């Protein structure tokens, strides 16, 4: 593959090979199949496409999927940063163990996670029975969906923030403290800014993963139309009716929204890279 003109000059070799292979493999595994999905969408005429994406059930599912994912990702940002902080900064009993199980949601099959969470949160389950005396049901409500999404998204924020915190130069904090800054100011002004790109990455990954999640959610969601019906389930319905174009249309809308969110966040990162000079 010829050397690309559009990159900035560098003496490090191998750009053609690695860039070429990256684009080739990316196209083969991801881009061509996804392009096929969009092409399938074009089999619909505009009126049917419009009918699909403006139907009350579609809109309700869209709100639920993106809303619950957003809330889960925000929660994960808060507890994720907290967990990363505690794991990096403090030494306590069973720290290594806790550190190790963070990745569990990555490794556990989603269907197993869904089954396990559902059996815990139904009114007769270990956790559900703590709430049912107060008339609070968790499984088969949007809260249950949120719990499943928190579960699958938790590692993303922790694992993106952790390495940055570990690399963080504590002398800077000490300098701030020496200069008389209260701890809160030090954290807000000195520690937080370099964490922002990592937090954003973690947020966007957790969010994007949650929007598309099926296996773990389907068991704990009630799947009642317009109340607890998630977007991927609508795709499954259309698939089973063998309405491939309609299924592809819903998938394409989901994908486009997720892609725009991811792209925005990655652009913010490139910008902050430039702004704070990194690499």
């Amino acid at each position, binding site marked *: 593959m010829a050397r690309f003109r559009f990159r900035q000059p560098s003496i490090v070799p191998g750009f053609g090979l690695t860039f070429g292979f990256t684009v080739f493999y990316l196209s083969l595994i991801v881009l061509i199949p996804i392009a096929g999905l969009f092409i399938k969408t074009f089999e619909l005429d505009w009126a049917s496409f419009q009918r699909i994406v403006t139907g009350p059930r579609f809109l309700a599912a869209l709100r639920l999927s993106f809303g619950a994912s957003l809330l889960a990702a925000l929660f994960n940002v808060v507890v994720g940063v907290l967990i990363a902080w505690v794991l990096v900064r403090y030494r306590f009993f069973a720290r290594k163990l806790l550190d190790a199980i963070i990745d569990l949601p990555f490794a556990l099959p989603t269907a197993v996670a869904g089954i396990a969470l559902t059996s815990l949160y139904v009114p007769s389950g270990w956790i559900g029975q703590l709430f049912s005396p107060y008339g609070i049901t968790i499984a088969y409500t949007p809260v249950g969906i949120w719990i499943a999404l928190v579960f699958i998204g938790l590692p993303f924020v922790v694992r993106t923030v952790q390495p940055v915190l570990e690399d963080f130069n504590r002398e800077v904090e000490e300098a701030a403290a020496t200069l008389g800054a209260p701890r809160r100011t030090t954290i807000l002004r000195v520690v937080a800014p370099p964490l922002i790109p990592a937090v954003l990455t973690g947020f966007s990954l957790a969010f994007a993963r949650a929007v598309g999640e099926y296996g773990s959610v389907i068991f704990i969601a009630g799947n009642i*139309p317009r109340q607890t019906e998630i977007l991927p389930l609508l795709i499954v319905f259309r698939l089973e009716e063998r309405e491939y174009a309609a299924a592809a249309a819903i998938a394409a809308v989901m994908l486009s929204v997720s892609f725009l969110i991811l792209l925005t966040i990655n652009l913010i990162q490139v910008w902050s890279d430039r702004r704070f000079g990194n690499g």
Partner: protein
Amino acid sequence: MLFNRRTLVLTAALAAAAPFSASMPAFAQDTLNNVSYDPTRELYREYSEHFNKVWQAKTGRTVVVSNSHGGSGAQVRAVVEGLPADVVTFPLEGDILGIEAAGLIQPGWQSEFPAESSPYTSTIVFLVRAGNPKGIKDWNDLIKDGVEVITPNPKTSGGARYNYLAAWAYELERSGGDAQKAQDFVAELYRHVPVLDTGARGSTNTFVQNKVGDVLLAWENEALLSLKEFGAGEYEIIVPSLSVLAEVKVAVVDKNVDAKGTREIATAFLNELYTPEAQKIFARNFYRPLHPDQVDPAELANFKDVKLITVGEVFGGWAKAQPEHFGEGGIFDQIYSKD
């Protein structure tokens, strides 16, 4: 160089995969893929063993039957998309009509096997918790205040469609043929449903394992199996005044068996379903046999007398009922688009 190495890896991988995907063939062995629906797991496990013996006695060859189970909607889709099924065994004629429409099964398959290709039947009953605390006797008790009903989603589950149609037929008869009343009744019924699982087995698990809901609308065989597995002290079966006859349909997937040369064994597999031994297996697994006279009378005692309507009589057949009630924008969708 990197490319070469990658090709090497891929080649090695495919070479490793090849013998695997051929399912480790022993000599003189046949394979058969039976694509079926959710609740028949136990049934076809037993029947496949039986068929293997029959086939071995007849031809001296062993047969490995791969049974694939799932929500009937997903299973039909998989066959249409190219899952190499030799035979299909589905709970609705509509399922097989979908495969026929895709050109995989020749029209007229209904007359290829006896009794319109329906070797066994089932129906829909209620499963309630021990002592029937909510006093459920019939369909109209399901819409009483505070009753929670568990049924799967008719969009993805064949059994759920029978549940829905049985409820509809009940109210239709009670109101003297008023379709609007029937629709209102069904709509009210679904307001009592807290969770719509995607398959019949999922709903049974929700009711039995997770202890959600007061009444499960279930396949008769699922209900009887629940009693057997979890003890009669935990649950009771309630037979409503009217229910629906579920005619299970079987067919050979013509295009696949012709391509694979498995027509003989596929036909034998389905023909064997009509023998007395197979009918006994059905009764043992709580399906209503086609020939009750060939079955141990003690096992028939499980099947209570109930007035059974057919989808053909009341709804004009599956080809009409499916789009009208369960298609996109159909009556089931309308029920949920009203506030």
